[in-house]
């Protein structure tokens, strides 16, 4: 493993740690960098506005749904950042481009996967699918696990494909 790859992976590890620390102490206002695009995209997908409420998050009065701090998807982004960094590094990525691509991919994936999870959660809440042991809270938990884990599986495939495309071909190879 080259030095620049080790440094890049260390920087990614540091970014994961920093994100976790930031998330643990952040107020909802500090998380606008991820909540704002999420709220905008959920609003577009559901056709109802989400307004920012200080100290609470993005609220849809129509759906009575609040995108709060715990809905921000930061934990998903941390997992995605580590997984993407390792996948790209194993495929030959290194240096600043490895760090930059990992951060960009994990951020975009976190927003998109979280939008899908929230849109599904709104739909499930309005469909009243819970009954018996399967309470609304358990269905919400199950939906979150399926969407987040599914998102990681898809992201892993995308990262590996991107790494294959970006990998330099050996000189003299037929194009």
């Amino acid at each position: 493993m080259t030095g620049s790859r080790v440094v890049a992976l260390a920087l990614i590890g540091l970014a994961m740690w920093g994100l976790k620390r930031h998330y643990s102490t952040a107020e909802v206002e500090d998380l606008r960098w991820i909540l704002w695009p999420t709220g905008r995209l959920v609003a577009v997908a559901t056709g109802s506005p989400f307004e920012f409420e200080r100290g609470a998050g993005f609220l849809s009065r129509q759906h009575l749904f609040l995108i709060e701090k715990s809905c921000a998807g930061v934990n998903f982004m941390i997992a995605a950042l580590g997984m993407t960094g390792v996948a790209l590094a194993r495929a030959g990525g290194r240096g600043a481009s490895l760090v930059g691509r990992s951060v960009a991919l994990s951020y975009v994936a976190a927003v998109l996967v979280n939008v899908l999870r929230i849109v599904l959660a709104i739909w499930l809440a309005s469909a009243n699918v819970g009954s018996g042991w399967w309470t609304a809270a358990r269905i919400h938990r199950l939906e979150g696990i399926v969407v987040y884990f599914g998102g990681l599986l898809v992201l892993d495939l995308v990262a590996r494909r991107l790494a294959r495309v970006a990998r330099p071909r050996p000189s003299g190879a037929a194009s």
Partner: protein
Amino acid sequence: MKASIARAFRGAAAPLLCYYAIAVGVPLANGAAARNAPFLEHVCFVLLVPPFLIAVTRLRFSAKAGPR
């Protein structure tokens, strides 16, 4: 069939490990997750649902592809 499912688990090892680490490992490590019933239920969901998804997805793809 067993080999096919084992291959699916190997392919999904990185997402599975990352998900377990962030959803179970980190809360356990920082002590935020007291060993109470809701957290234990959360852990059960997190540990069981992803392997179930991998196995079901693999079986569906195997069934679609048919015998080789």
